[in-house]
């Protein structure tokens, strides 16, 4: 548990166990949105009477879980690339001397 200044009562998030709960909760929500979402998409596809609406967009958009996987991989790649970028461009705070 993190210390709080001046005898302030600790908040819910100050307990690391609760942070763990938030992290697990995020996993659960993501899995629900992935699998539940795929179910919903399939249902919407069946209901769509308009053939154009059913086959709208690019082919890759209809791969199962495309958006979830894309978001996850894109962000991991972004962060790892940015970390590498730091080696190249990071300088001290007063680099420009003003």
């Amino acid at each position, binding site marked *: 548990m*993190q210390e*709080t*200044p*001046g005898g*302030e009562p600790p*908040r819910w*998030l*100050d307990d690391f166990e609760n942070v763990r709960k938030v*992290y697990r909760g*995020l*996993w659960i*929500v*993501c899995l629900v*949105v*992935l699998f539940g*979402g795929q179910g*919903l*998409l399939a*249902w*919407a*596809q069946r209901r769509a009477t308009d053939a154009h609406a059913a086959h*709208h*967009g*690019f082919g*890759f*958009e209809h791969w199962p*879980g*495309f*958006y*979830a*996987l*894309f*978001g*996850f*991989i*894109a*962000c*991991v790649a*972004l*962060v*790892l*690339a*940015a*970390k590498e*970028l*730091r080696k*190249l*461009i*990071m*300088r*001290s*705070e*007063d*680099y*420009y001397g*003003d």
Partner: protein
Amino acid sequence: MGIEQIPPGWIMILGAALVPLLAGRLKQAWMLFVPAAGLAQLVFLIPDGTGMVASIFEYDLTIVRVDPLARLWGTIFYIAAFLAALYSLQLDDDVQQVSALLYAGSAIGAVFAGDWITLFVYWELTAITSVFLVWASRTERSYHSGVRYLIVQVGSGVLLLAGVVLHVHDTGSLEFSDLGGVTDLATVLIFLAIGIKAAFPFLHNWLPDAYPEATVTGTVWLSTFTTKLAIYALARSFPGEDLLIPIGVAMTAFPIFFAVIENDLRRVLAYSLNNQLGFMVVGIGIGTAASINGAACHAFAHILYKSLLFMSMGAVLFRTGTCKGSELGGLYKSMPWTCAFCIVGAASISAFPLTSGFVSKSIILAEASSEGLALTFLVLLFASAGVFHHSGIKIPYFAFFAHDSKIRVKEAPLNMLIAMGIAAALCIGIGVFPGLLYALLPNQPEHFVPYTVPHVVTQLQLLLWSALAFGVLNWYRIYPPELRSTNLDFDWVYRAGAPAVVGACGRAIQALQTAVLTATRARIVGTIERVHRYHGPHGVLARTSPTGSMALWVAVLLSAILVLYFV
């Protein structure tokens, strides 16, 4: 003269003149009244089709042209000006208050300009008036940043004027309208001029350089006008220009890498502002009626949530004195309302369903999709995930959560909270009732339906799994920590690179000069010495003899001649 005769924007410009004469509550009321009066004038007194022409020399200048595109921009500019004025209410600094009203007024004037000359005048006015919001921080750093900002902004105006002069010479038309693409020198110059203000890649550095150096309230004003005026000018003059698609795509993608590692949270927002402009530029580049609508709609929504985000970070800076991720954390305990409003802004910029970003950005993505631009679509999708990552999560997380920085401050002042509250309500209102905004779009009818099952589901999948990526990286401590640093961007070229090259050239020239001078001096000294040797006081050619010896020698020579003559 009735109030409807005053050109839009001039209520703000004239209103600014009175500010230094007022004080206290009266001044505060005036700062709120001026943008509200301007908005009321635009909504109730100026119908579409209103025009105002002034003749100067042999040119007819269309000072005012009102159509749906201009009206949409004018409306959101007034709303943003009102919110920024409300947010700055505790401020008592004539320099900032006057320049803010002049700046907003000239941006609004520019939106209603019907010809290139009028646009140019307002274009430069926005540059000159806005720099005071940067300088008003009154630090060495902000002074230098402001000078760079001013040079770039005025430079954009000079390019615009050069392009306009050529354009008018070639075509004889002054009308500020579609130029039909980048085809000749005139259009290239105008394109570059607009591109500078729109923060095209490599022309963008003034934005992340200057905006974070402005005052707490100044950045809120700045974030609205200059760049969106440029987007408006692009929508007017280069709709459907193919070049805009790759430029816009690059704009959405590259700033997010900088945003991830940037420590100053207002600079993170400046980079994400650049990224959001990219979406609008792509929309204009696609050039269909729907995609222009998408760009306009996104500009409207963007101004609100970006103001909101800058307001929330401004409030943090105002209370804690810093805006650096490395120093902040745990502020949700002492600034819960600011935190909540920031999260609404963060959700909106990330385009969560039920927020304004969702109903606006989707139009552009849907158009990229229906035009079959697969690569563009994928990069925009990457940028959507990325913007959620750095603006949607990083900003609130490092300011309000993360590790407790033990900073305990008061909640933001009431006027700031109300301004943030209204902006947040508008973000959600537009997200819930998109039809209200769609009705204002320039190309009617707008039939876009944002809330379909596939759209909501796929967007939630994209965003939540991006959040999961952040969660996982953070959990395993892979996520890069916030570090006090300067990250080099293209501005290194003119802030360090060019000065270094110029410095090296200067030193080389100096060395050469010294060498030439030394050699020359040596030769001159040598010559003088030689002359001195022969002609100096002891020189052989300067030797003197008494007159008597000359008489003697003459006598000797005479005698010798006489002797020789007789022999």
